[in-house]
């Protein structure tokens, strides 16, 4: 089984251009003579769907799908009713190979290739025999996915509401020249942005207007948003021209307008399990690349607020998916749980008043420990999406 996998991936790299139709990935010929292998080679052409075996033992199954046709293809494993999707791989370009990994309990199934991505596909019966291995069916928990979606969508709505309310207050303080109070509210308001950062970033037009750092600017690009105001509130000691009242009003109005826009767009937003799972991972990536290095809030040094907010958002996403994860991979769930706790304990050590110490107060060892804890959590969290969507 192992060997065959390597063969197929290298066949992809080497053999495809020359002899695409010749390479067999058949595990029955190379997998050591097993009668019912758990790895099936699927060859999808424009008018055929050749599956190397019509039978497999229950458990984790792999379909190694190769598109030998000229159209973009898809491959499905369907339940007995021919409707419910157990697993699918989409968007397989001509010549490419992709694995579909599913868990299947004993029963009758259908395999289907869908060259050209239209119609019911080229179907064939497929049987999973009882291997004695317990297998929780893939894609069975529509109710749990729905619950996770609802929970996460309402979290996003709640956070954007709070973001709008606090941004409104923040920009009015800033416009009125009440810098001390504006500074005090800056990190607290941004927390709501940072908690749902991947969602906010998914609106490609809003994110650069609202959250671009000075270092991210292209030559000549207009700089607006949170970090533009941050620099004006915590200006560099020399060489900085403070904003005029008119400039302040313009930048504040723009931020408020964009925030309202974000608020509107998130009223009816919905999610899928993979979006939520990838969002959790994305938030930790944000921590690893921007916050733990102190690059996000280069003027205010309020990076630890953002750090905590990213972790909060990732935790909420994971918690929504936990019922799915616990069924599929309880060990991964426990590991994520332990590492969230360890990271939170470290963060809590840097709390001060209602918030956190300035990033500049952290010494190298403390930053290193935080970074290690972020890595420790990110690694299992990167496996969340596959675990809950498998």
């Amino acid at each position, binding site marked *: 089984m192992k060997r065959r996998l390597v063969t197929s991936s*290298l066949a992809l790299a080497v053999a495809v251009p020359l002899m695409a139709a010749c390479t*067999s990935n058949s595990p029955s010929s190379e997998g050591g003579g097993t009668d019912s292998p758990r790895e099936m080679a699927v060859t999808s052409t424009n008018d055929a769907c050749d599956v190397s075996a019509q039978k497999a033992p229950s458990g984790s199954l792999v379909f190694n799908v190769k598109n030998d046709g000229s159209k973009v293809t898809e491959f499905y494993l369907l339940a007995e009713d021919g409707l419910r999707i157990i697993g699918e791989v989409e968007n397989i370009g001509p010549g490419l190979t992709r*694995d579909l990994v599913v868990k299947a309990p004993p029963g009758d199934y259908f395999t289907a290739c869908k060259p050209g991505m239209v119609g019911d596909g080229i179907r064939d019966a497929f049987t999973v025999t009882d291997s004695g291995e317990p297998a929780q069916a893939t894609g069975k928990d529509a109710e749990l996915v729905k619950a996770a979606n609802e929970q996460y969508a309402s979290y996003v709505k709640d956070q954007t509401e709070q973001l709008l309310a606090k941004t409104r207050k923040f920009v009015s303080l800033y416009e009125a020249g009440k810098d001390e109070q504006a500074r005090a509210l800056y990190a607290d308001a941004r927390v709501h942005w940072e908690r749902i950062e991947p969602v906010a970033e998914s609106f490609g037009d809003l994110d650069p207007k609202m959250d671009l750092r000075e270092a991210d600017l292209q030559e000549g690009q207009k700089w607006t948003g949170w970090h533009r105001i941050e620099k004006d509130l915590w200006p560099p000691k020399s060489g900085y021209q403070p904003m005029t009242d008119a400039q302040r009003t313009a930048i504040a109005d723009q931020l408020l307008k964009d925030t309202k826009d974000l608020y509107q767009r998130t009223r009816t937003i919905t999610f899928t399990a993979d979006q939520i799972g990838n969002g959790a991972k994305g938030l930790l990536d944000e921590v690893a690349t921007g916050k733990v290095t102190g690059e996000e809030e280069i003027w205010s040094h309020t990076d630890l607020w953002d750090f905590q907010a990213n972790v909060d958002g990732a935790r909420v996403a994971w918690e929504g998916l936990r019922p799915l994860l616990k069924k599929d991979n309880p060990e991964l769930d426990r590991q994520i749980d332990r590492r969230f706790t360890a990271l939170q304990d470290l963060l809590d050590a840097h709390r001060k008043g209602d918030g956190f110490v300035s990033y500049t107060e952290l010494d190298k060892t403390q930053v290193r420990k935080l970074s290690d804890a972020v890595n420790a959590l990110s690694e*299992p969290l990167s496996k969340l999406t596959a675990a809950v969507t498998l």
Partner: protein
Amino acid sequence: MAPSTEHPGVSRRRFFGLAGAGAAVGAAAGFAGGLGTGRATADDPPTSSVPDGYPFHGTHQAGIVTPAQDRLHFAAFDVTTDSRDDLVALLRDWTAAAARMTAGQPVGDQPLPYDAPPSDTGEATGLPPSRLTLTFGFGPSLFRDADGRDRFGLAHRQPQALRRLPHFPADNLSSERSDGDLCVQACADDPQVAVHAIRNLARIAFGTAAIRWAQLGFGRTSSTSRSQQTPRNLFGFKDGTANLKAEDTSAVEKFIWVADGDDPRAEWMTGGSYLVARRINMVIETWDRSSLREQENIVGRDRAEGAPLSGGTEFTEPDFSLKGRGGTPLIPLDSHVRLAHPSQNHGVQMLRRGYNFTDGNDALGRLDAGLFFIVYVRDPDTQYVPVQNKLSRDDAMMEYLQHTGSALFAVPPGVRRGGYVGEPLFA
């Protein structure tokens, strides 16, 4: 130790080469339509008599008396967990990954869903094993922390010899380049393969251990087998002429492997060895301005051939008593070869396995370069420490050297099939 002909797995390149060959044949025969030539060959044993891989399992860990490969990536780790179970789990995972990578196979053997990050990072795909060896060690701090606290219930088994090395004269050590709870020495003939190995082991370790420091070496500075040419260090001289060689089997037993009864507290080290790592910066620019006369007198050998200044060829034994005009020894009293030679150190030998390194340049534009010195000994207290004290104090070469990193690790014996590295320590 002769290179084994065991083939623990099919290499990345064998697949690559055979798939390519199959592809060519297939293309040529394509019109006939009767194909299938590209299949099944993967199970054939390699036909080449020169193996490009070493077995991971064995009595001793590979990467010690193994003929020194051309490239190094060495990493020291801090263990970040308090859990002994997590530590053992890491050693098991490392063992499994190491067995696969040294056989030229990717990390992880299960196909993963498209939505999962791949278990192997991929940059060694298509490359042969490149004689990759992975050698694991345990630092003193794994047993007791700086306050002497027993971290994992291992303190009572800490070897007597496994202590922080003493301060040697002129040491200028950086703590960021020194010590560590665990180490992995990755040696291969292809730097991409060595780096791939450390990268994947570091990835597996997240949450249990984190890299403390790491060092790349671009060229070996020692031969550990008579089958190898003596390479040159960055001073331009042959290095390691008098090194202990794998073929000197009785000396290997006497000077490298810890024997049964050596340390009653640490019977688990039987068949293991101690690894000393020293990052030695060379002051390249001033060395290059010194005359050949000075250079050869400092080394005690001629630069062209590596022959001792007392005469002969590279492998002629130096004659330290031979005097020239005015009665001064041909091999100066403060020369490196004299001070380091076994005959001047009660017959003590060591197995050096160092690498040249260059880490760019310093702020003044000088090469940040030197020798990443690795030595394997049965007992650091009687073999390494006295010699290094003498060299650091008296060696004329010290004018051009600065030791900037230091570490000592206990390298446990080899791994049996089904076991994991260091298992006897935790048993």
